[in-house]
């Protein structure tokens, strides 16, 4: 032990630098290696997670196409956020018919932002489902927005949650609003969960804000989305003759 102590201060600075540099090189090499190895898997996982959520909020969808919605129009888009605009996911059935559009939204809840994905059904101009992507709400209280059947009934009913645009197409005809438990009267109102009013309101705020921003931009181009996406080229023989 004594010998080691006496020897320690004599370690030249150069050796320390070499050893530390070597360790840094080694760790850099390891980290880059792992990053390269896992990157494709992680991206595939994220894709799958998006896909799963999209198919959940757009009932009947089996195919997904991404679009970027900007004031200039709607364009097909990649998975990674490209440019400034709103990314939406079109959900299509086997025949390539548009079943609904999944959109991201976020609203301030009890303990932070509640991030969700909701499915907009253009046929009824309503919101049919939503899925919570991330939240920090209190377990057992705030997370009832996922499990509470009464709350889900706001969306699942035959008419969904109304998100109709006004005549001019500049905003929603009636803003989506969360009301106190048991006092829902209109199809654009969300019946809050008693005991989790603030989280229920977060859902309302998220849906309202996102729909108010997106739908006026999206509505003029909806026809384009419905038609453009025909089933993948696997069955071209089905085309009707003239």
């Amino acid at each position: 032990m004594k010998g080691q102590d006496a020897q320690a201060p004599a370690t030249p600075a150069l050796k320390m630098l070499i050893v530390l540099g070597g360790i840094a090189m080694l760790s850099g090499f390891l980290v880059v290696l792992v990053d390269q190895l896992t990157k494709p898997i992680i991206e595939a996982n994220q894709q799958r997670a998006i896909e799963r959520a999209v198919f959940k909020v757009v009932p009947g969808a089996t195919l997904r196409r991404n679009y970027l919605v900007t004031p200039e129009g709607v364009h097909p888009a990649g998975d990674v956020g490209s440019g400034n605009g709103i990314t939406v996911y079109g959900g299509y059935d086997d025949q390539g018919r548009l079943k609904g559009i999944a959109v991201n939204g976020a609203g301030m809840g009890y303990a932070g932002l509640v991030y969700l994905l909701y499915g907009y059904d253009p046929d009824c101009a309503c919101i049919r489902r939503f899925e919570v992507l991330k939240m920090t709400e209190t377990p057992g209280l705030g997370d009832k927005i996922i499990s509470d059947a009464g709350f889900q009934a706001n969306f699942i009913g035959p008419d969904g949650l109304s998100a109709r645009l006004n005549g001019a197409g500049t905003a929603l005809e009636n803003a989506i609003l969360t009301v106190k438990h048991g006092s829902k009267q209109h199809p654009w109102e969300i019946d809050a969960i008693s005991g989790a009013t603030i989280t229920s309101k977060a859902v309302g705020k998220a849906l309202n804000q996102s729909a108010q921003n997106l739908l006026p931009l999206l509505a003029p181009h909806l026809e384009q989305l419905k038609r453009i996406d025909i089933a993948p080229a696997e069955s071209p023989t089905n085309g009707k003759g003239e």
Partner: protein
Amino acid sequence: MGMNKSDDVTWDSFAEGLWRENPVFVMLLGMCPVLAVTNSAINALAMGLATTFVLMASGLLISLMRHLIPKQVRIAAFIVIIATFVTVVDYSIQAISLDLYNALGAFIQLIVVNCIILGRAEAYASKRRPALALISALGMGAGFTFALLCLGVVREILGAGALFGFDLFGANFEPWVVMVLPPGGFIILGAWLLLFDWRKHRTQLRSLQEERGRAG
């Protein structure tokens, strides 16, 4: 050559970390993840395994390099090595399951400041043979995982009425939500520590009595 005895790989070099020097229940180290990610058994298990991997990998590497690393810069070197393996674990968990990654959140990256790992690197791995460092790290990791599971299992059963996601009591059970919330973590860990302290106290008392009996 006084170190000879502790240089042999014995069952004890593994079991020591598991029980007698359990990092959580006995040494009170690495409490942050113990409380933060044990609201369900599966999270607890994942965190335990991740920490075990970092313990073993960093222990092995540090032990292999123990003659190379100059004393003055050893802590910096240890931290860089540990941070590297934590990054490896972080990316691997993302690749294995995104749900798990989202549940554990930043706490995977916080393994880097878990005092157990730096403590073992400094006190054990940097002074022992690789085989010994590896076995001891495995024992410590197992002890840590065991402690995490102790908490995770109790908290999930009480707080969610389930174990590893499987419903245990049926619909009539009203879960004690507070147990999966932060206060539940403190209280359950306190209860476990009380149990351990009580056991220790009793054995001490008994050996004292035996001694007295022999003397009398």
